[in-house]
Structure formats: structure tokens, C-alpha cells
């Protein structure tokens, strides 16, 4: 095995070792060195993630059998087009967030870079793993890292929001274990592919129990994904935490969505016989309601970060719609929209941080305040991101939205999706235009003395914002990819195929 | 504490022996574990050394063993006594506090003494005075206060004084 053969595990191991290295003396007491190491590591991760992507594109699915034990006995990492794409996304986000934080936010508490690295490790692990219990473990890794990151910088609001976030997720983790126990107790295995293979062997009663377990998993993933009615924690959590952390969290809901796709779209997907698509009857109304409630909250938002958090919820609803549509085309559209919304929301959170710093007491609330010293460039970025988030041209939002609308083929579904998605967009437009006009145009005329943004912060935002037009310009290529990823995802992977690939 | 304390091979030889013995008990005296046990018997005292304070050492090991043996017998005997008391009616109980004057001050023998008192069923040492001059003991059934105090001092404190030489 050459080093290149171990590529699949790099997205988990690099952050792990870097995080640990940052704890040792020599690095732990020099913030400058930490920043350098962290940024280098993140760049390396981007490189690794994309190398892996090209490898998977060229050679097909990559399977990495940990401990050299083949599935289903050992744990395997499975890098297919979809998971690798998610890893790339997290790498890019990680880089931007780290760069943004090096401007000073990493100073406001201990272990920032270490925790970011652990967080990325958890996220990547969750994307790559092909084992249900290992997914739980990586969920916990990313959760505990997120708990710790969320209180970074301290403050009452953060503590308060964190209490809600942590305790809800603790219930969620318990439910996760109940679900895993149920699935193991009926299917007798933990490997995703093997689970899918074994469903046809179940007796009627076992099927029903397995169904309960699988649906319980939906609640668990739904909590992470912030779908209705489990979304309540999100606005407070995302809007009160520190800027880079909020931006990184943009991908956390997507981990939930991703898991729903993996588990309910594939294991309990079309091929699952008696258990085929058991989540769909639930997901469809939930998806629509999530959009409705999210949009209402968008309209009600009183500050940019809350607005952006609520937009995350709307995007979750939209993604759930694509899951419920359950076609390759919809999945492909969903994957495209997922990349777009993650990056746009993350960038908006970063921007909100800059705006907050420059507006003094008013922070990012929609009230008149002193003019920002860098209103011009901030306003420009805001406009771009608003356009992207609303789903207007020329940025990627409109492509995603149009793809999703196109993928609705049944009239009965279109009757719901079209109005909701479009009115959701309209509400986002109203809210964001109100936000923009009050943040940038409504000034009290006070003298400005606030700090200007650090160049690193602008580079970080620029990095993310630049992706949005690229996703339109190279929309054809990106869509080819998402199409293949969706086909691969929908086709599923049997244990036999998995083990053949592993050889 | 000076961090550069001098390195000693066997900071606490009694402990080392005890550790080695315990290891053998745990592993039924197999050959490999005789070596491994020795390793631990040496290494653990090193690790623990910084956390140990100068403590009194038994100067008469044989007497100490005899003391232990006697204590075990006392425990067995008074157990029977207390079992009776427990099963009898509560009203026949005559619980009491007594204060035992102390002669030994050193923490280790003091601990052994108070533990001995507590271990024998029927008496529990509940408090030690600030100046370590008095031991307050709760007695489950007290007939003669002075006799009991004398018994305790003679039977446990005196031998301990001898063993530790204080």
C-alpha cells in the first residue's frame, strides 16, 4: 500500500494529529505558531480532499478497511462521490473559518484551533464512515467539539444557548443509541451495506421493530438537521456563538441531512423491500412545514445572525424536499443546493461577524446605528450573499432553486413545492432587503471609531463568496458531478460490491 | 517541595515487598509475573514517591503481626456480641459516647489505633480532638465506661506505641 492508498482516512487523521500536536508545549503556548500550523493543515486538507475527489472520480468508490478487517466485521470508510464532495465542502469551510479566526477570534478562549480540528475530524468521519455505530461515535466527536466551540469567547448568551443545544443533543444521542440497539437487535450487523442486504431476511415482526428503529434514527438525524419540530435550538445557538464557529456550524445541519440521505435514502430506500422509503411519508410534510416555519421566522428576524440562522432552517426544509422527492434528479439538485446553501450561509455568518464588529453597540441588529467604516465593501459582499441566499441570479442560488423546481415532476407535489419554495424566496428577499437597507443605509450619523476588518477576514469571506459564481459558471461540470453522485447514492452498495471494491 | 529530590532505588522498601506480594497473589505466583511484579514493585514506589510524606515505620514487625492477629480475633469475638445486641430489643441497648485520652500523636499509629477501635464491632471512633489528645468513640452498648477506656488503651494503644516506638 502506498501512501496514496491511505488517502481515504487522511481527512480524519490529519485534523486528529494536528489537533493533538497543537496541545503539546511549543505549539500550545504560541498562538502564532498555532495559526500557522492550523492554516497549513487546512490547506493540506483542501488538497487532500480534492485529491480524494479526483481519485474517486477516476477510480470509483474507495473503501478503506480499518484494522484490515473486512466489512461487516470491521469498520470501513467508504468514499463515494457524495461523501467526498461533503469532505471537500468541510475542508473549504474549515480553511475559511480558520483564516477568519486568525484575525483575533482565536484569542478569546483556549484550544480554539485544536477544537476546530477535532470538529473537522468528526464531520469528516461522519461523512466517510460506512458503519452505523461508528457514525454515532463521529457524531459524538463533532458534537462534543461543537459544544466546546460554541462557548468559545464566553458570555451569558452563549452559555444559555449552549445549555439548550447540549441538553437537546444529549437526548438525541440517547435516542441514537436506542435506535442502534434496535437495528442491531433485528439486523445483527452495523455495516450500512450489510444492513441493507439483510432487510429482506427479516420476519414480519422483526421488520416492524426495525422500522421503529429506523424511524427513531430519523428523529435523531432530524434534530441534527434542524427539521421541524426539532429546529428550535438552532437560531439561538447559531446566532449567539462566535462568528467563525457559527460559520463552521453551517455544515452541521448538513451532516444530519447527509445522514438522512445515507440511511433513509439508501438503506431504507427503494431497494429495502418491506422497509422501502419508510421515512418519506414523514419527510414530505415535515419538509414543507420546515420551509413555512423557517420562512416565517426569517421574516421575524431582528438581527442578521438570527436571519441567517433561519435561512439555514429554510435551506434544511428545501433539502428535505429534495430527499422526499426521491429521484435521481432531485437528489442531484439537492446536492447542488446543499453545497450552495452551506457556503452562502457560512459566508453570511462570517460577514455578519464583521458587520457586528463595525457597528458598535447596535451589533448586527436591524436598527439605525453609526455608519460602518468599511460599509462599501461590506455592502457589496452583503448584496452578493443576499442575492445568493434569495436564489436570484447571477449567483448559484438560482441554479439550485431552478434545479429543485425542475425536479418536481408530479403535479400534486409541484402544487406544494412551487409556491413554498418561491414564496420562501420572496420572504427571504423582503427580509434581506429590509436587513440590507437598515444595516447599510440607515445611519445615525455618529462618528465611526470601530475597528476595521482584518485582511485575513476578507480573504476568508472572499474565498467562500468566490465559489458561488464559480458554481454558476461551471454549473455544467458541477451538475455532471452531482448527477453521478446522486446516481451512485441511489444505486446503493451491497456488501459484496463493497468488499470487491475493498480488494 | 524540592523537585530535584535525590533518586532512590527503593524509596519505600516495605511497600515494594508488599506490592510484589500482592502482584503474586493476583497472578498465582507464575514465573513471568515474578519478574513483572518486581518491575511494578520498583516502578510504582518511584511514581508514588512525590506523593508520600515521611511516615512512621513499624520498628517491630513481629509484634505488628501479632497485633494484627489479635485484632482479627477480637473482631470475630465482638461480632458475636454485637449480633446479639442487634437482634435484641432496642430498649435494652445502652449506647454511649466515651472520650479516650490519647498518648500517640503520630498520624500512622494514630490511624491504626482509631481504625482498630472502629473495626471491632461495638465501637466506632467518630471524632478526633483538634489537638489529637482525645478520641471520641461511640459505643453500641456500654456497661462500664472506665473499664472500656482502659481496655482500649491497653489492648490497642500500648502495643502500637511499642511497635512504632513512640
Amino acid at each position, binding site marked *: 500500500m502506498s501512501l496514496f492508498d491511505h488517502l481515504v482516512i487522511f481527512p480524519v487523521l490529519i485534523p486528529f494529529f494536528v489537533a493533538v500536536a497543537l*496541545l503539546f508545549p511549543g505549539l500550545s503556548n504560541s498562538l502564532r505558531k498555532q495559526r500557522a500550523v492550523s492554516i497549513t493543515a487546512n490547506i493540506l486538507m483542501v488538497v487532500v480532499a480534492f485529491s480524494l475527489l479526483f481519485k474517486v472520480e477516476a477510480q470509483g468508490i474507495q473503501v478503506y478497511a480499518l484494522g484490515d478487517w473486512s466489512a461487516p466485521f470491521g469498520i470501513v470508510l467508504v468514499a463515494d462521490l457524495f461523501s467526498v464532495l461533503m469532505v471537500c465542502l468541510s475542508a473549504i469551510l474549515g480553511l475559511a473559518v480558520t483564516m477568519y479566526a486568525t484575525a483575533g477570534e482565536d484569542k478569546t478562549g483556549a484550544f480554539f484551533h485544536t477544537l476546530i480540528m477535532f470538529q473537522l475530524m468528526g464531520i469528516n468521519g461522519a461523512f466517510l464512515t460506512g458503519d452505523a455505530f461508528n457514525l454515532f461515535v463521529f457524531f459524538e466527536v463533532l458534537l462534543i467539539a461543537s459544544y466546546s466551540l460554541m462557548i468559545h469567547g*464566553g458570555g451569558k448568551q452563549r452559555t444559555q444557548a449552549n445549555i439548550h443545544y447540549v441538553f437537546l443533543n444529549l*437526548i438525541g444521542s440517547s435516542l441514537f443509541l436506542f435506535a442502534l440497539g434496535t437495528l442491531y437487535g433485528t439486523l445483527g450487523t452495523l455495516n450500512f451495506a450489510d444492513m441493507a442486504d439483510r432487510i429482506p431476511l427479516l420476519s414480519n415482526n422483526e421488520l416492524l421493530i426495525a422500522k421503529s428503529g429506523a*424511524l427513531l434514527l430519523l428523529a435523531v438525524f432530524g434534530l441534527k438537521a434542524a427539521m421541524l419540530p*426539532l429546529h428550535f435550538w438552532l437560531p439561538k445557538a447559531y446566532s449567539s456563538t462566535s462568528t467563525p464557529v457559527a460559520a463552521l456550524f453551517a455544515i452541521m445541519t448538513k451532516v444530519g441531512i447527509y445522514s438522512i440521505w445515507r440511511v433513509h435514502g439508501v438503506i431504507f430506500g427503494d431497494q429495502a423491500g418491506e422497509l422501502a422509503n419508510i421515512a418519506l411519508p414523514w419527510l414530505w410534510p415535515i419538509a414543507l412545514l420546515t420551509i413555512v416555519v423557517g420562512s416565517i421566522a426569517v421574516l*421575524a428576524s431582528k438581527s442578521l445572525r438570527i436571519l441567517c440562522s433561519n435561512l439555514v432552517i429554510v435551506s434544511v426544509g428545501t433539502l428535505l424536499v429534495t430527499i422526499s422527492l426521491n429521484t435521481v434528479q432531485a437528489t442531484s439538485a439537492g446536492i447542488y443546493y446543499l453545497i450552495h446553501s452551506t457556503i452562502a450561509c457560512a459566508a453570511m455568518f462570517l460577514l455578519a461577524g464583521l458587520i457586528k464588529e463595525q457597528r458598535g453597540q447596535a451589533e448586527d441588529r436591524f436598527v439605525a446605528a453609526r455608519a460602518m467604516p468599511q460599509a462599501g465593501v461590506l455592502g457589496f459582499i452583503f448584496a452578493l450573499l443576499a442575492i445568493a441566499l434569495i436564489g436570484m441570479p447571477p449567483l448559484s442560488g438560482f441554479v439550485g432553486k431552478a434545479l429543485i423546481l425542475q425536479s418536481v415532476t408530479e403535479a400534486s407535489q409541484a402544487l406544494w413545492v412551487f409556491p413554498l419554495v*418561491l414564496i420562501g424566496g420572496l420572504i427571504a428577499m423582503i427580509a434581506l432587503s429590509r436587513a440590507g437597507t437598515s444595516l447599510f443605509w440607515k445611519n445615525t450619523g455618529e462618528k465611526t471609531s470601530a475597528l476595521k476588518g482584518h485582511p485575513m477576514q476578507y480573504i476568508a469571506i472572499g474565498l467562500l463568496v468566490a465559489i458561488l459564481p464559480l458554481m454558476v459558471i461551471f454549473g455544467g461540470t458541477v451538475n455532471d458531478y452531482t448527477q453521478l453522485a446522486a446516481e451512485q447514492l441511489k444505486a446503493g452498495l451491497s456488501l459484496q460490491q463493497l468488499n470487491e471494491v475493498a480488494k | 517541595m524540592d523537585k530535584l529530590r535525590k533518586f532512590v532505588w527503593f524509596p519505600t522498601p516495605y511497600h515494594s515487598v508488599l506490592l510484589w506480594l500482592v502482584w503474586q497473589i493476583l497472578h498465582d505466583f507464575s514465573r513471568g509475573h515474578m519478574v513483572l511484579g518486581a518491575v511494578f514493585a520498583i516502578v510504582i514506589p518511584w*511514581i508514588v514517591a512525590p*506523593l508520600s510524606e515521611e511516615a512512621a515505620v513499624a520498628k517491630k514487625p513481629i509484634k505488628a503481626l501479632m497485633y494484627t492477629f489479635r485484632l482479627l480475633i477480637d473482631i470475630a469475638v465482638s461480632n458475636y456480641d454485637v449480633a446479639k445486641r442487634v437482634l435484641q430489643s432496642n430498649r435494652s441497648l445502652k449506647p454511649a459516647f466515651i472520650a479516650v485520652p490519647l498518648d500517640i500523636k503520630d498520624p500512622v499509629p494514630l*490511624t491504626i489505633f482509631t481504625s482498630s477501635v472502629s473495626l471491632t464491632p461495638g465501637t466506632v471512633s467518630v471524632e478526633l480532638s483538634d489537638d489529637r489528645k482525645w478520641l471520641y468513640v461511640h459505643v453500641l452498648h456500654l456497661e462500664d465506661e472506665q473499664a472500656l477506656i482502659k481496655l482500649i488503651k491497653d489492648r490497642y494503644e500500648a502495643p502500637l506505641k511499642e511497635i512504632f516506638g513512640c
Partner: protein
Amino acid sequence: MHYFWVPFLPMLGIIVPLFANKLNRSACTLATALLPALALCFIFLDLPAVLAGESFSKSIEWIPQLGLALSFRLDGLAALFSILILGIGLLVILYARYYLSEKDHMGRFYCYLIMFMAAMLGIVMSNNMLQLWFYWELTSISSFLLIGFWSHNSDARKGARMALTITGAGGLALLAGIILLGQVVGSYELDVVLNSGELVKQSPYYIAILSLFLIGAFTKSAQFPFHFWLPHAMAAPTPVSAYLHSATMVKAGIFLLARFYPVLAGTETWFVVVSLTGLFTMLLGAYTALFKHDLKGLLAYSTISHLGLIVLLLGLNTELAAIAAIFHIMNHAVFKASLFMAAGIIDHESGSRDMRKINGLWKYMPITATLAMVASASMAGVPLLNGFLSKEMFFAETLEQSILGSMSWLIPVLATIAAAFSVAYSLRFIHDVFFNGEPKGLTKTPHEPPRYMRVPVEILVTICLLVGIFPNYTIGPLLQSTSLAVLNHTLPEYSLAIWHGLNLPLLMSGVAIMGGVAIYLNRKHLFKFAGMFPDIDAKLVFEDCIQACVTWAQKITMILENGSLQRYAFCLCFFALLLIAPPLFELDTTRGSLPGTPLNAAVLVAAILIIAGSLATIIWSHYRLIALLMLSLVGLVVSITFAYFSAPDLALTQLSVEIVTVILLLLALYFFPQQTPTSKSRPSHFVRDLTVASFIGCIIGSICFALMTHPLDSISAFFLANAKTGGGGTNVVNVILVDFRGFDTFGEITVLGIAALGIHKLIARMRLSVRTKDYAGRLWAKDKYPVLLSVVSQSLLPLFLLISAYIFMRGHNLPGGGFIAGLITSIALIQQYLAHGVDWMAKRVSVSYHYMIAIGLTIAGLTGLGSWIFDRPFLTSWFEYVSLPWIGKFELASALVFDIGVYFTVIGATLLILASLGKLTTTERLTVGER
């Protein structure tokens, strides 16, 4: 093929003004105008072919999955609009050079303007519906920026937002319409779509598509009931109004109707809806315009009225009507742009737009006055001007149509009335501004504008005259090719002559002019009449509506997200219950086929203990210390249960974890109230929570029972078979942990490490209030470190460590392992903390616990990496039996090294948590002061 570059040139031009801004104003203007001018030249290069009836299109793939392509066409309609957009655009650029003041950011203004121009060009030249929509939305965005250009002005902000909201909403409807249309036709290319009219009209989605398109068009073109945004967009700088609200943006909706005329028009629905909307808008606009005192307000309503007229024409069921519509599009663009510019000059040079203040300007600016008078005469439809020609055609078509059946005569009558109002407000524009006495209360003396500011007006007015007098030579060919593009088949006969003889339309014109004069003469009565109706400010109404929506949304959100974790947790539990319960109700029986294990008394006692303990925990949950004691009872019984059911490893782990947890909870409890306030929880919540919890408990119990009684064909046999041979250990559980599923353990110790770091973060800067008495008011005991405890703890330490070594060493083959050993070591050290205190330990233990975590994780990680040397995947284990003389055979295994990593991580994490918490509490206590 020059046309293909046309949409790109202004797009490139967007950035030009931003850079040119540093030059002087004229240079900036020139630089800005350069690329649009070039684009116009390109159009003219291709124009002859277009006029000859050709239509070009070219398409480059962009996002094929979406159906989006880089696809442009040039036909008559596109050419006409391109010329209007670029031509008038260039004039506006010139005009704005003089209009904008030094304070205004000229580069930014031009940037937005060119962006808008590019977007408009994109719309009219698109050969792909999605691309059309792409540009359509860009016009909304750029017009938002242009209207809000004077952002310090609240009217501008609100006007811009309103325009964006209305047109944006229309845009979304249009997108839906386009996607539906695309799905019906199977392509988004206009070449295909425009020739699929019949297919579309017969599709069941026709009505939906039509309504969505009409919403898009009507919002953009300010048709009733979406017309109200346009007057408020007048807060924009006048060049913007001259451009957007005469020739371009508002015409985009009209363009859309014209473009899709072959596809969507021709049905009853189309005729009725479109014509009636146009008719009503026309009347409403014309009537309202008369009463506006603001010059631009008057022009805005006039625009609405004329747009209505065009829409009405497109909705009439005669083919010539469409041609008349196109003709009027051109004419209106020309005279309305010049009028806006004139209004801008007046505003600029007199400082006011209020017609009650500005009077008699003829004296001060005769040339401008002349130009404005000619333009408004055109607006009124006076002969020899272009407005007259199209109006004449319009009248003629109103007479030809038959859409209202027997009531069709209403349309010409109403048209004449509208025309009369149009004459009246044109008259007002002339009389009230240039005559009617002297100016009142102006801040400055009006004068003629700079020479070149008037040039655009002059050019436009000249066009009015030329078209009005020589229609066939000036506009004839273009009109013809445009009409061809709109109708998509051979044209009917029509004539552009000025004189058609004495006919009904001429009579109508006459009546309209006479009526208009009469209305204007009686304006006092009319103003009084209009004054009786409350003046509704659409902006306020709109803002109020939005505000009401926002308030409503906030109320709903407050109700949903009430900030109560109890609510959220309940939702989670209830939702989970909803998901898991239904399948179980279908279950015949939970009992599976396996025979049950007979019950014995010990198990029964354990069960009673567990149930009593749990129940007691709930009952005494308010007395926290007691609850904790109950909990430790339950923990103990659970551990024994594990031992009983053949899981010694679990028993050991559960025991040690439980003790550490109890210690942690005790440490924390010191800072909490000892009792939970009881009165605070509502009884209804209590019952609600209990119900849900019981249901979930029942279901969990049922599933648990079912799982235990069903035979399971699991993968475990493999582990039992391969633990010794493949993993080198006989304790299968441990082999799974460090080998088969070592990656889980790897993740698990990472979790532990992260938790410790997070807790360290939490503890930093924590401020606590320390109590000097316990909850019952008892003073604390004096003795911090009871001597017995100290002595015994200290002497137990080596034994503790030895036992942890024992548990560690045997882990691979017998119950035990790194984790339990780590916990035992930690507990031994915690016992020292307990007995001797933080300071005593700090003096003696110089290890930093977070380094220890790092070391542990590194060891585990490097052990995993070690397998790479042997060309094996991460965490592949290695073991070998070694034989030494006298000692005998023993095993060396990499799993042991991995376990050392686990061991150190556990110690580091546990002690980092407990020791730093202990330290914190102690320092806090010192600052508060011990009695």
C-alpha cells in the same frame, strides 16, 4: 454575427465606471459610454439583415442539466428593444453627467446603470427562457440599487424595497411559469418554444403558465393591481426614471407579453384578462395623473396609463392591435424619456418638482419649455407627432375588437375617456409649469441647463417629430420586422400614413382633445371632487402591510420558539414517540420464539432495587443530594446486572465511571441550590411530561423485550472465532475494542479528550458564588483534611496503582483494559485530591493533564499509523508470542500500546476535569473568605 457580443459588452462595461471614477467627470462619462456605444454599433451592423426579415440565434451549452444555455437571438423585437435600451441609455448617461452633483458617487451610479442596461439587453436578446429569467432578476436587483441610490433618503429606501419586492415576486412567478412551460414544451430554447404555441395552449398547465407569466409581466410593467410601486420609484434620481420608467424596465413586462405572444396569446382567457387589466390600468393611471402636483408623479401615472394602453392593445383580439402596441412602445419610450429628462432639468434648475410652486418657467427656460411642450403634445396625441400615430392605431383597433361580445363598444368609449384625461394632464404639464403666473417660493432662480444636458432631450424630441411626420421612412421597416417577430407569421395589411381620411378614430381623437381641454378647464371642480377621497399613500400601506406581516411572523415565532428548553425537549420526545409507536401497534406479539430464561429471586430483588431507585430518584429529584445517592444505588445495581449477564468488562467500567460521575456531581452540587424550587413547574406540564415519558418507556421496554426474545443472526460469531487467532486475545470484548472496532475506541477517547478540553474552557473565567454554610444553615466543619482519611488514602495509592496495572495488563485476555485501568488510576489520584487538597497535589504533581491527553491520543494515533509501515490499513494490529528462558511464553501485541494511549487519555481527561474543577472551587472559596 455581431449581435452575439452585444449582451457581453455592457456586462464588461459594469466595472469600467468603477475604475474611471478617478478620472474627471466627462472622461468618466465617456469611458462609461464607450462599450454601450460599441454595442449599439454592433446592432446597427446586423440591423439590415433583421430589417430584411431575418432572425438570428446562437446557443452555447452552459448548464445542460438545467436547460440553461448561453443563447441569444436577434430578431425585430430584440433589435427594436436593443436600440431603445442602448440609444436611450447613452442619452441618459450623457444626461446624468450633468444631473448628478459632486456629492454623488458617479462611478457607482454608472456602474448600476450599466448593470441595468446589460440586464435589459440580456432580457430582450435571450433565446433561452431561463437565461431570460436570469436577466429579468438582474434588472430587479440593479433597479433596486438605482432607486435606492440616494440611500440616505428614507423615501428612496422604501421605494427601492417596494419595487424590489413587487418585481421580485413577479420574477419568482415568472420562474415558476418558465419551468412549467419548459416542462410542457421539453425545451427552454425560445426557437423551440415560440413554435409550440398549440402544444402549450392545449396543455392542462396552460392556465397556470399564463397566470404566472402575466403576474411576472404585470408586476414589472406596473399593471393594476401591482402598479403602486412605480410612483414611489420616483424617489430615484431622474436619469433613472427617464431610463427605467420610460423605455426599459417597465417595458420588460410588455416585452415579455410580446415575446410570448405566439405561445400564450390567442385564447379567450388571454384576451379577457390582458385587455381588461390594460384598460383598467390605463383609465386609473390617466385619471390619477391629472391630480398629481409632483411633476414626476404626474409622469409616473402617465406612464402607468400608457403601459395600460399597450397591454390593452396586446390583449385585443386583432392582429393589428399587436402592431399598434409595438408602435406605441417605441413612441412612448421616446416622448416619455424626453419628458422625464425635461422634468429633471426643471427640478435641477428650479429646485422643485411641485407644480404648485413652479409656474411661468417659459420666461426662464424657453428652449427647455419648447422641447417639453412638444414632447407632452406627443403624449397627448396631437397630430404630426409620433404619439398621435400610435394613438390613432389604438383607436382603430378598439373599434375592431370583439372581446366583450355585445359590450365590446365599451372599450372604445373608455379609451376615448382615458385619452381625454391624457390630454388634460399633458395640458396641465404645459400650462401649470411654463405659464400660470409666476413661480412661488422657489429656492433659486430657474435658468436654462448646461448645453449638453439638453442635448438628449433635443434628440428625443426631434425623433418625436420625425416619426410623427415621416413614419414610413423612419420607423416603418423596424416596425415591420418587429411585428413579424411578435406575430411569428405573415403580417396583415396596415398603414403608417398620417392621414387616413375622416374616420371614426380621427373623430375619437378629436373628441379626446376637446374633452381633455374641457376637463382641464374645469379642473377646479375635479380637484375638489378628487379631494373628497382620502389620499392613500401606497408606500405607507405597503410598508404597513409588510410591517403587519413581520409583526405577525414575530408573534408566530415567539409562540413557537418560546425559549423554553422544556418545550423543545418535549417536542423532541413527542416527535420520537410519534415516529416509533405506529409500527409497534401493528406487531402481533412482542414475544419472539426464543425460550425465556427462568426468573430467580436475586434478579427480582435487583429489579426491585432498580425500580425503587429510579422512582426514588424522581421523587427526591428536588432534594438533589438524595437523588444523587439514589442514582448511585441504581448505578451499582446496573453494574451488578452487567456482571450477572456475563459482561464483567461492562461491570468494571460502569462501576468506575459511576464513581467518577458521582464525584463530579458532588463537586458541582456545592454550587447549586440543594433543592429545586418545586412550585415553579405547572401541574399540567408534569402530567404531560409523565405521559410522554411513560409511553416512550413502554415502547423502549417492549422493543427491548422483543429483541431479547427474537433469535438473532449476528456477525458476532466471527468475533468469537477470530479473536484469538486474528486479534491475539481471549477477551473478545477487548479485542473488539482495540482491534476489530478499534476505530470506535479511537473516536471514543477523542471524545473524552475533547470533553476535557471543553470543560477546561468552561471552567476558565467561571465566577461562582461560594456558600459559607450548607443549605440548612450549618457552618462547615473545620477539618479540611481529616487525618485518618489522609493517611489511609496515601497508603492505598500504591495498591490502587498496582491494581490498575493488573487490570491493564490482563485486559486483552481477561476482563479489564486500558480504559478501566485509567479510571482506577484517576480515582486513586482523585482520592488524594480529596484527602490532601489541591495545593498539596499541585506541589507534588507537575504533570500537566492536557499534555497527558495529548500524549495518550498521540500514542493511540501513532499505534494506528504504525501499521502503515507494514503496508496495512490504519489500526491494523500486530501480535507475536515471544519465549524467554525461565519466564516462558508471553505475548507482545500492538493492541497493548494502543491501550496505553487509551489509559493516558483517560487519566488526563478525568483529572483535567476533576482537578481543574477542584482547583476552581478552592480558589473561589479563598476569595470569598473562609470563616
